[in-house]
């Protein structure tokens, strides 16, 4: 599906991509990891046809630079930093939908599922939205069409737990008929989303490996927590994860998206001393 052959990119004499060769097939979910300056963003921009480069890049046999409209019509993209677009949300949705040949309602439905009520912000400039709202809208714009390739730069970083759960479900819906390239500085941020890891350093691929024990994107774990005594800060955390409590607010039950379990455990670990019982298992 995606083929890179000895791709090299140089900026004013500095080699940012240094002979990258990769093949990415349908159904692969790749974590593109590496420190700042490793070349992740440059690689994505080359794949999007935004940078000229040496070497060969083809997507379904097409050159993303020469066959822009055809190639980009298949790609959903979520950038690392939301663009400072002044246009109202409604106009952005209409513009993207018209270009991508999808219905604005489809994008809005996904935004609604992620907890973003488009009607309430339709006339608000995109740049005035909060970080989380921008992220949800960009995800909705990327997923609300027939994309066979998803390029996402830390897509879930600004999402609340509930939106993350929906996001994972949405990705699961694309898993069989799309390939995903998810860029991040850290593997633990995206490990649960992917089944292959590509690590870059100084413009080179230094690791390309399958990820063992990868979880199903759409699966959910049931969790039960019993506290020794009530603690408002922990209750607020669990509220954020949409957990329900009994009358005394000592027994909590909720569902955690499987790909988000490490993040959840990290949140719970801070209150480990309060726990008298903790269980997390498949439904």
């Amino acid at each position, binding site marked *: 599906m995606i083929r890179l052959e000895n791709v090299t990119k140089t900026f004013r004499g500095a080699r940012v991509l240094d002979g990258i060769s990769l093949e990415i097939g349908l159904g692969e979910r790749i974590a593109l990891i590496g420190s700042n300056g490793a070349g992740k963003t440059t690689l994505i*921009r080359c794949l*999007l*046809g*935004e*940078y*000229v480069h040496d070497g060969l890049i083809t997507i379904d046999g097409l050159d993303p630079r020469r066959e*822009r*409209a*055809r*190639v*980009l*019509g298949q*790609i959903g*993209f979520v*950038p690392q*930093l939301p*663009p*400072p*677009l*002044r*246009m109202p949300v409604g*106009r952005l949705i209409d*513009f*993207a939908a*018209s*270009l*991508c040949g999808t219905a604005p309602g489809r994008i809005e439905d996904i935004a609604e599922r992620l907890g973003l009520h488009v009607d309430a912000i339709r006339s608000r*400039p995109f740049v005035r939205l909060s970080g989380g709202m921008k992220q949800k809208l*960009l995800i909705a714009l990327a997923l609300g069409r027939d994309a066979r390739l998803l*390029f996402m730069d830390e897509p879930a970083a600004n999402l609340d737990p509930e939106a993350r759960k929906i996001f994972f479900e949405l990705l699961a819906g694309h898993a069989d008929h799309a390939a995903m390239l998810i860029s991040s500085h850290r593997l633990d941020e995206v490990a649960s989303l992917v089944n292959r890891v590509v690590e870059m350093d100084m413009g080179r691929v230094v690791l390309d490996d399958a990820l063992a024990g990868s979880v199903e994107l759409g699966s959910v774990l049931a969790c039960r927590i019993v506290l020794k005594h009530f603690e408002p800060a922990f209750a607020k955390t669990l509220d954020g994860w949409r957990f329900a409590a009994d009358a005394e607010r000592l027994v909590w039950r909720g569902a955690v998206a499987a790909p988000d379990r490490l993040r959840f455990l990290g949140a719970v670990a801070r209150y480990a001393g309060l726990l008298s019982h903790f269980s997390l298992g498949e439904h």
Partner: protein
Amino acid sequence: MMKQLFLTARLDIAESLRARWFLIYTLVFGGIIVLLFVFGLTESRVLGFIGLSRLLVTYIQLTMAILPIFVLITTVRSVAGDREAGVFEYLLALPVPLGAWFWGKIIGRYAVIFAPVVLAMGGAVLWGQFDGIEIPWAMFGYYTALIAVMALCFLGIGMLLSSVARSTDMAQGAAFLVWLALLLFLDLILLGVMIQGRIDPELAVAIALLNPLQVFRTAALAMFDPQLIVLGPAAYVILDIFGEAGFRVFAIAYPAALGIGSALLGYHFFRRGDLL
């Protein structure tokens, strides 16, 4: 391709209408017309011109002073600025051909910079009709055409600079330098060169007429001074080369060609290199 071009043009118009520069731009050109009326310019007489002709003559002189730098700076600021801020990174990841994007932006921007200036002139004509002032239609038509090509010329140059410059600061600096160079060659440097007698007056006039600012100024003068008497000996050279009607055509065709040529060159650079 046409659909994407139309969508990009419409987006650029909508974005410009929301931008602060457009508000200032519209206020400046609308304000000039209002001020000219308020100060009773239609009732004063200069070189035999009175009424709306007098107002239009003054308006086009002011427009020639303001419009080029306004168009240059706002074009490079918004195009290079959007690229620097990451707007291009996102919007150019949508399935839009580069030609549709570049020319759609030019069409949208052209509509936005041309409309306020001509609407202000149109407003003056309406006001004149309401006041019972005679409307100089030929002058109105020609000045409209001059403004149309002036906007096209500097928009094309602005897009070329935006395509070549890698940062907003560089694009803005280059735009200012271009405008300054055209302004200096308008009179000061050429006069100096001619006074020193190092080049033929014909050559000096020819160089001057390569300067679109000089072409606009001379064409605007020619509307009320067809023999270009105020230009002195340079008038002989201009009228010898073009003739009266020929110069009018040149004053429209040359800046338009310069603008379109610059835009084509800008597109060539834009398409060939990194988009961000």
